């Protein structure tokens, strides 16, 4: 009996102590920003890579005196999935009292966390997740720097119209397009948008193959594609399925036609390491990568040097670069607002105007006041050539011409 009372007393005291801690976004000499990224679990690789970009931007700013002499401090969370994102965002806002958050790499995580931000009057800066529905809700609490998924589809079709038609000697209406996509919101959004745009342009969409990214066998996808005989395949894959598609196409004797990846798995060094020579010739639409025309992306080389010094290895993907550039915009908005008040920071953000070709990613910045989406960011087309992912289109950012006929 006595033991029970002691236990209950102990629990009460620890609850009170836990509830006592708490900080606001701005204390006397610190500016606190919450981060919502998946740093463990399935998405750990790119979640942590994205976080590194944010961390480097903050480190750089603090070395240059912080914002108005105040040190920027990151309050981190581990948002493994949408459920965790919701609870972590709630914790950061309500318990830690932080109303400026950045995230998220994954669209599912972003969607959940931004709902929490909207309900609690916080400001959520999205630096990497692409699903259109994040900004389609026109929430005043959401600002996104990176391009949305639909822009991937737009650029894919532009690339086909501008480059592939010439290469294949066919008109746009004669092109036969196939789409293979993983079935979460990332894959489905890009696939549906691409299908719509392709049909508007008069292209024939011969097949759309949706599959679960957790599949460990995609032979049915390959066989269906082989049967449909497309001229161009647009693929939206995470890493596991990207590896499987390349390997199983080879196993099943299917010579892939012009193959356009959409970021995700096809961007990763691990993809190229796993499939070796099979990667060569594969195109990939994604956020800015490192083999790029640096005249259009000032600051990129310095970023890479900073990254290598801090983490002892080369960047594992372009996610850190995009999050770095995005975080710098966040810090610029806070500085220009002169406060961490959500209204003031948002207003300052809406007034930011940066030209394309002047940032480390080459993106410009101009936010649409209704949705919070940056209208001057776009993905670029890269290609795996001799084991390296190099940017090949549009011409402003390209390092070399696209290669066909591998």
């Amino acid at each position, binding site marked *: 009996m006595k033991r029970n009372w002691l236990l209950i007393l102990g629990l009460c005291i620890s609850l009170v102590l836990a509830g006592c801690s708490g900080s606001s976004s701005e204390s006397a000499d610190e500016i606190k920003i919450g981060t919502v990224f998946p740093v*463990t679990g399935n998405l750990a*690789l790119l979640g942590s890579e994205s976080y590194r970009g944010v961390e480097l931007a903050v480190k750089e700013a603090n070395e240059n005196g912080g914002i108005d002499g105040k040190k920027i401090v990151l309050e981190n969370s581990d948002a493994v999935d949408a459920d965790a994102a919701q609870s972590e965002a709630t914790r950061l806002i309500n318990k830690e009292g932080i109303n400026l958050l950045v995230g998220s790499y994954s669209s599912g995580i972003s969607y959940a966390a931004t709902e929490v931000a909207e309900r609690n009057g916080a400001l959520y800066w999205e630096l990497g997740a692409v699903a259109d529905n994040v900004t389609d809700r026109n929430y005043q609490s959401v600002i996104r720097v990176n391009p949305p998924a639909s822009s991937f589809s737009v650029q894919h079709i532009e690339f086909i119209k501008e480059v592939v038609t010439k290469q294949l000697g066919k008109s746009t209406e004669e092109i036969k397009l196939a789409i293979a996509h993983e079935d979460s919101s990332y894959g489905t959004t890009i696939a549906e948008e691409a299908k719509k745009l392709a049909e508007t342009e008069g292209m024939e969409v011969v097949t759309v193959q949706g599959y679960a990214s957790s*599949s*460990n066998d995609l*032979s*049915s996808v390959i066989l269906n594609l082989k049967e449909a005989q497309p001229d161009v395949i647009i693929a939206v894959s995470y890493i596991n399925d990207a590896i499987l598609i390349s390997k199983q196409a080879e*196993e099943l004797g299917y010579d892939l036609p012009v193959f356009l990846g959409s970021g995700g798995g096809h961007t990763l060094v691990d993809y190229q390491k*796993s499939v070796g020579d099979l990667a060569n010739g594969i195109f990939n639409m994604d956020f800015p990568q490192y083999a790029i025309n640096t005249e259009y992306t000032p600051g990129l080389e310095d970023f890479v040097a900073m990254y290598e010094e801090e983490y002892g290895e080369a960047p594992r993907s372009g996610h850190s670069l995009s999050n770095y550039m995005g975080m710098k915009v966040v810090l610029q908005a806070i500085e220009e607002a002169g406060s961490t008040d959500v209204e003031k920071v948002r207003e300052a953000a809406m007034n930011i105007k940066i030209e394309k070709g002047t940032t480390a990613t080459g993106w410009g910045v101009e936010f649409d006041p209704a949705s919070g989406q940056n209208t001057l960011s776009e993905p670029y087309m890269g290609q795996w050539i001799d084991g390296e992912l190099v940017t090949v289109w549009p011409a402003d950012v390209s390092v070399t011409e696209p290669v066909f006929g591998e």
Partner: protein
Amino acid sequence: MMIIQTIISGILLGGIYALISMGLNMILGVVRIINFAHGEFLMIAMYLSFIFYAWAGLDPYASAILVVVLLFLLGIVTQKGLIEPILDKPASTKIFVTLGLSIVLQNLALMIFNANYMSVSTPYQMSTINLFGIAISVPRLIAFIVVIAIVVLLYLFLQNTMVGRAIRAVSMQRQAAYLVGINVKRIYLLAFGIGTALVGLAGSMLMPIYSVYPTLGASFVLIAFVVVVLGGMGNMFGAFYGGLLIGVIESLAGVLFSPGLKEVVYFIIFILVLLVKPSGIFSRGKGSEEVGL
């Protein structure tokens, strides 16, 4: 033509599923514990295979015997240290212990190897045999041949050796096995060890085909359970038949319906089988599906 290719691919895929599930069949059938960490043992086996490749330049097929021995030892240690003490505890303990083990192993792997996808590069990895226009991948064929060999060896072992018969006895009727003087505890150790050794072999065979990453177990463990329960737990070879069946169904469903639905199709069939014959298709009948919960 495409249908034949699909079926052949399905059979080869089924062979892989069977290989992964046979270890689980042994553990589930004899020790009667639901080992949620089964996928993680596969992951450990593949990482070991990768380490032998990266540090000693050993081809996964060459290091297979080492991986098998190491996984056998790991199984015995797990059974002795983790499973044995909880065999008479309530159901929730049994579930949480292996579930906890699974999470610990996943995150341990994440800590040691981080989240990168590792794979080996061998000369025959991408080679295919072309038989009348049907493409057959060489590593998958080798995995299939190995699973057939294992089935044969396992059958001979269980039928003709004293120990094998003791294992079958414990699997059929544990109480009676005690009564005839079989050291059931030792049989459990052996069965768990053999179970994880089989998973070790699976890992070695899988290394040329798949890449390894910390959460790899999660994508295979569910299929392994489906295969074992569908095939029939009382039957030592249920996993083999179940695996082939699931492999073929999955491949055909992907081509005839859509790849997005292929898992749905075999799960529906799985549920239907459970409604009609809960102990599994090839089981010995009612009662053999009892798991010690």
